[in-house]
């Protein structure tokens, strides 16, 4: 009875109930309604728009025929009837005659005849179609009806004028409507265009935004990457610095250890005068085998020095220049070690100081020099100058001198020498550095290179700057040992004067400087 599509519904009970209802219904009144029939639909009479023959005659062509059928027969013409009537009209037949034909049918006879005037036309139609006399009748009728026909034609022309006027107006209306429609279409197109443009702008905007976002993202990624790189680099450099520091510390420790080993048996400073020579001679012979330079090379250096530097007496005479400085800066008196001469060579400065009552320790690496000094009874130590300095306590030496040593050093070692000297000197302690003067072009270009162990000439300005940089004060430049006057040009002219300056000027110079800090002055702060 019903399709069981829902488990919630009790279909058996429902079907029983429906069955009972239908049973009750079957016992009652009539149950069969009339059957539905598609053909049984109300037929509606079509009414003509026109109501009179005069109105009908005012129409033309198809409209005339359709309205004539509706008015006379109450139905539209069949396609065949329409074609026949239009053929007649378009062939020149009189409208009244066509209407007469429509109204002459048997069907029209069954209709109530509304227009008796058409009966005359029907008679006329029959007469003009009679054989032989038909033509004559037509002519007579034409004559008889000429005037009314003329009136009809005039009326018709008048109607045509009115129709033309109405059509013109209708045409103008139509044009206006079409114009409106065209404008609306145009507006719609404009709207569409605007919409498309807006969409395009939106897309462009989106693109710009995406591009900006992408650019920002890229910049952020780049920044992050660079930051990571910088961090890694910093970490790496830190590790490197740490390693360097450790290595340096290890080297220093090694140096200290070596020095401690070498000085382990050194007697107290007061007794050193007697002991040091033999002590160092032992050291010198012990380390002779370890030095890279052979004893033969060291002998060559001694010979070179003897040949070019001058006699010990001459040198002592030159060194005497510095003695007044020792009086000016007497801090050496309070120091635990009064003076040290680094690279002491044959010991001329040591000899000179000894005569002045100052005990000076000579430091030299050359075994021949060490030996010569020992033989002269001077305090001498065969050691690397820098290592020796590094092993000294701070503020412990009153005077540190170095004659013609710094031009043998690589820049890094020179810097180290200055830093360590600044550290080791007592406040107020004096430093003397003497070196060939390259301002004398002969010295700078030729004589300097007589010593093959010289590294590079050091212009006074450089050394002066470095000394200042490492915190020394009271810095003075001493231009020394000019060429003998008799060898110079006679200064009769500016050219001779300049030539003397460049070629016969001081051959050496010295920088003297004092470690600040004595008598309330600030301690030097080596970088």
């Amino acid at each position: 009875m019903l399709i069981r599509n829902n488990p919630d519904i009790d279909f058996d009970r429902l079907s029983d109930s429906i069955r009972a209802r239908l049973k009750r219904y079957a016992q009652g009144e009539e149950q069969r309604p009339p059957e539905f029939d598609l053909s049984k639909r109300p037929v509606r009479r079509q009414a003509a728009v026109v109501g009179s023959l005069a109105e009908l005659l005012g129409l033309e062509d198809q409209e005339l025929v359709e309205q004539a059928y509706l008015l006379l027969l109450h139905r539209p013409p069949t396609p065949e009837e329409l074609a026949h009537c239009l053929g007649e009209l378009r062939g020149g037949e009189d409208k009244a005659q066509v209407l007469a034909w429509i109204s002459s049918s048997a069907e029209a006879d069954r209709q109530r005849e509304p227009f008796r005037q058409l009966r005359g036309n029907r008679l006329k139609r029959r007469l003009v179609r009679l054989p032989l006399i038909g033509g004559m009748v037509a002519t007579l009728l034409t004559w008889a009806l000429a005037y009314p026909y003329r009136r009809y034609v005039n009326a018709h022309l008048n109607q045509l004028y009115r129709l033309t006027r109405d059509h013109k107006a209708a045409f103008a209306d139509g044009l206006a409507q079409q114009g409106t429609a065209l404008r609306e279409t145009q507006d719609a197109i404009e709207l569409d265009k605007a919409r498309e443009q807006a969409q395009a702008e939106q897309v462009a905007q989106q693109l710009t935004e995406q591009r900006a976002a992408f650019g920002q993202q890229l910049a952020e990624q780049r920044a992050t990457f660079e930051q990571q790189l910088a961090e890694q680099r910093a970490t790496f450099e830190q590790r490197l610095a740490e390693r360097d520091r450790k290595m340096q510390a290890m080297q220093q420790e090694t140096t200290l250890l070596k020095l401690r080993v070498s000085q382990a048996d050194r007697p107290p400073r007061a007794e050193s005068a007697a002991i040091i020579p033999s002590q160092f001679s032992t050291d010198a012979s012990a380390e002779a085998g370890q030095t890279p330079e052979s004893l033969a090379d060291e002998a060559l250096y001694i010979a070179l020095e003897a040949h070019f530097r001058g006699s010990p007496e001459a040198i002592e005479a030159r060194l005497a220049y510095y003695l007044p400085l020792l009086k000016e800066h007497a801090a050496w008196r309070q120091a635990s070690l009064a003076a040290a001469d680094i690279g002491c060579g044959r010991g001329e400065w040591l000899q000179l100081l000894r005569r002045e009552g100052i005990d000076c320790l000579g430091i030299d690496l050359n075994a021949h020099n060490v030996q010569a000094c020992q033989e002269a009874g001077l305090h001498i130590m065969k050691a690397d100058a820098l290592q020796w300095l590094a092993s000294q306590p701070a503020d412990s030496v009153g005077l540190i001198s170095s004659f013609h040593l710094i031009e043998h050093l690589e820049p890094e070692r020179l810097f180290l020498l200055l830093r360590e000297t600044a550290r080791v000197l007592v406040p107020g302690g004096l430093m003397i550095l003497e070196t060939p003067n390259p301002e004398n072009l002969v010295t700078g270009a030729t004589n300097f290179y007589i010593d093959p162990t010289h590294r590079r000439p050091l212009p006074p300005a450089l050394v002066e700057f470095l000394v200042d940089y490492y915190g020394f004060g009271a810095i003075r430049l001493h231009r020394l040992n000019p060429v003998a006057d008799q060898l110079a040009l006679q200064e009769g002219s500016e050219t001779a004067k300049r030539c003397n300056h460049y070629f016969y000027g001081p051959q050496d110079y010295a920088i003297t400087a004092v470690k600040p800090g004595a008598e309330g002055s600030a301690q030097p702060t080596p970088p």
Partner: protein
Amino acid sequence: MSGVLRIHQLAAATAVGDGVTTGIFFTRKLLRALGHDSEIYACSIPPALGAQILPAQRLNQGQTDLLLIHHSMGHDHDHLIERRGCPKVLVYHNITPAEFFERGSPNFHYSLKGREQLARWREHFVAAIGLSPYNSEELAAIGYQRIATLPMLIELEKFVAKASREPSGWTLDPRRPLLLSVGRLVENKRQHLLLEALWHLKRMSPDGRPPQLVLVGGTTSPDYAQALQAYAERLNLERDVVFPGKCTDDELRWLYEHAAGYWCASAHEGFCMPLVEAGFFGVPVLAFATSNIPATLGEAGLLIPEPSPRLMAAATLETLEQAPLREQLIAAGRRNLERYSEASLLPRLAEFLAEVMGSRTHSAKPHSIETLS
């Protein structure tokens, strides 16, 4: 399948409030909800939809990953389908069989042509969507493969939170129950059976206040509509039946809100949207079980297997008099909506698109109807 796809829709004709057009809009909503770019293109666009639908000639097939082509009645735009190079999916809305139209009428012609096109275009489509099981079966019968049944038809939101308006000038008696039927007055809808059922119902009603029937719908077959009105006169139902013609949305909403039952006597329905709409408004449905109607209703409504107006009248009185039965029918109608909801359709549509696009890139092996529907 990943990323945003450009999945557009194309239809030969669109119309305001038309079932096919409503389905197209709903499908666009689903596609956009899945994150795809989706536009609607059509050859015929009513001015009121000009802002939402683009002209077919503006469709750029090079920028279309998948084109859903809606097909209902036949049309003369064959080139639209045959010349589009992008991958295409047929969305089949069903075609009323030609036998329901007068021979020689345009509907008769386009009904035949629509089915002929359906068979001819089979090779043009990579897959097909039947909007109802009935449609999918027809597609399978003519050799389509990779068919999914997805009823993407109903925009239920159009009824939500909107005002209704009582139709004025109709001869409705508020004391009498209101029965409703919505659809064009045309032979295959068989509204004459409803008049007959009303005639029986009037005689079965014990209290002398039988329901009134409102037959909403425009006329596409004037002869049938005239005969229907004449039949109502012959059955003396002039004061029991109302032919209001087409209704506005708010009038229709009022009718659904006040209806005690919904009748459907149709001989052929590809889907029949009003059956689901009645469920939305809590109106019990009584229908003859033809074509897709049982599938559309599911567990909802009372399905009468043979076209018996007497049975329909008796069953209707049961639904009017038995409150529990009435409640069960209303609940089933509401449950039925879930099958057509966005939440239910979205994953199925996504799965279908993944299958289709996946096979476009990986293999061309066709699937049978069972695997997708």
